């Protein structure tokens, strides 16, 4: 607790007069079990715009925080399906159907007979369909992960506070953002302090 006052001293002096500049408040913990309990308490208190910052994966923390399963797998599944369809259309149209179409520019399929096989030969089209499925699914998985996480992002308020340097080493943090509807200045800080943290402080935006 003495440490807390020490820490609050220097950075928060400036922020007191410019409240809208505050990104959020954080509480610092020393062990996975402590942050686990804190996460459960914050979740139970009904906060929504908050996160846990930990130096390594803590098993079960997602469940303690009440995070819903990601929708990424569903997006990836349909992206893969799209890849299959695009590949099959591309091959069947270009190799097997002489039909003029207008796809940005006028194009036409060409009936291309290969080694006496039927024009639409499913076995020949499967390798490309397979590869396109994988390609679409992979690129979508990576791309959607970036978009959903708001990446790439060059700056984040947690980079700025000196105490949060240790989040990549041996300390565990709970950060509640000020935009959370349940955030009340003073009360949220008091609530965090009730969780027995090492320190509580504001984060500047």
């Amino acid at each position, binding site marked *: 607790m003495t440490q807390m006052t020490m820490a609050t001293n220097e950075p928060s002096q400036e922020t007191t007069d410019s409240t809208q500049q505050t990104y959020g408040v954080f509480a610092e913990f020393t062990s996975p079990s402590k942050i686990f309990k804190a996460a459960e308490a914050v979740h139970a208190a009904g906060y929504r715009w908050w996160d846990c910052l930990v130096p390594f994966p803590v098993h079960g923390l997602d469940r303690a925080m009440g995070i819903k399963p990601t929708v990424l*797998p569903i997006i990836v599944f349909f992206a893969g399906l799209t890849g299959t369809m695009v590949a099959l259309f591309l091959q069947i149209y270009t190799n097997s159907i002489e039909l003029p179409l207008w796809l940005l520019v006028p194009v036409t399929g060409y009936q291309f007979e290969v080694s006496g096989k039927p024009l639409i030969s499913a*076995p*020949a089209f499967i390798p490309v369909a397979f590869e396109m499925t994988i390609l679409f699914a992979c690129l979508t998985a990576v791309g959607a992960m970036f978009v959903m996480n708001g990446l790439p992002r060059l700056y984040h308020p947690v980079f700025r506070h000196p105490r949060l340097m240790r989040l990549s080493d041996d300390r565990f943090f709970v950060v509640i953002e000020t935009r959370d509807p349940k955030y009340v200045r003073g009360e949220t800080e008091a609530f965090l302090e009730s969780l027995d943290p090492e320190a509580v402080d504001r984060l500047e935006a």
Partner: protein
Amino acid sequence: MTAHQVADPRFLGPIGRSMFWAFVLIGLACMVISILAGIFFTDGEVFWKSYIFAFIVVVSISLGGLFFSLLHHLTRAGWSVVIRRLAESIASNFVWLWVLFIPLWILMISGQGDILYNWVGEVAAIEAAHASADSTEASIQLVALADDHSTGAAHGDDGSHGGAHGHSLIEKKMAYLNVPFWLIRSVIYFLIWGSLAWYLFSNSVQQDADGELHWSRRLQRIAPVGMILYALTSTFAAVDWMMALNPEWFSTMWGVYFFAATCCGFFSFLIILVFVLQQTGHIKKEITHEHWQDMGKLLFAFGIVFWAYIAYSQYMLIWYANIPIETDFFLVRQLGPWFWVSIILLLGHFVVPFILLVSKHPKRQPAAMTVLACWMLLMFFLDIYWLVMPQLEDSGYAMAKIAEYDQLAKATADGTISTGYGWHVVNFTLLGGMVCLMVAGTIYRLRKCALIPIRDPWLPESLHFENM
């Protein structure tokens, strides 16, 4: 059968005794029925083909157990410790499985092997021709033999198939494909599988007593060598026992295909075994939804997706090149009723289970996974059946050449030319008998030790395992 009767859920307890005897009795009864039915109601071919089909099913499941145990030690895996003892027990069936192979040894030694493997007769004829004192006489005989072999070719201009040079393809394969070497190879397979399985099982059980690390280290040292031996022997066994049913045909994918089928059978069987054990109150806390999910992943990855990948790779290369000697295998499998079996395999072994299992949620539901595992086990049986049984009347290759495809399709559809299709009671009784005996053998091992390696150094890691 209720949970509260189990004294220690880590041991099989008294229920193992009744289960063991039940499976032994059912298995032996099925075998006796099969032998009687085989003697009185079949020609030998149906019986022996059913026999090799059922035998390969039990060998596959046991080989899967061997593969999984070796893989565990090879990668020094942590999560799979709680299911490793089950895999070891399934694998240790190799200690006695060779007994079921004795009838095949007798068949081959007695010179009647031609009933099952039609190369046996041809090799014998070629050898007899070679043995004749007069060399000119021998060469005449050889030419006659080659002509006899490719009757169809004589009418056409196709010289690519043996006849032109006076040598049949079988003759060129004789250095490998002869009865003594076939017998020696099968002895080697069983020696390697039996000793590997026994080494894995006995070291693991000895660790239960003292929990010393060096038992694990011994197994980790043997694992790479064991894995190489496993890969070689299972490939060659697949070639010897299944591919040799159609001796002129070949596929370099065959060993891998057999491996994929093996994994499908083993992981399905393992999932069902875990479900039954948990339903009877065993290892409920030890094997969690996390382990269920991983067993589901392995069944999905190896048994469904990898199987389809290999099956398709084999099919596509043959389909694309379209060389008669290679297409022979798929020709018979798209004629008559086999066409529908092939379609069922495509949909039931890949498309439907792929869609059902691609998400992680069903993998974490033991009941749903068990239903799917039962289905995949049936598909695995059908897959092996589909590999072993189809056979065009006479030589498939010759038939394919003399007949136009449309004629052939018509003749096989109305049954004038047999495709080897026909459900016979021995298909089921032999399969049931051997699978029951294998289950009994697995339970016999599990009765002698804990259901999980109770003092394995990696056990705590496995117990606390979580998928991220």
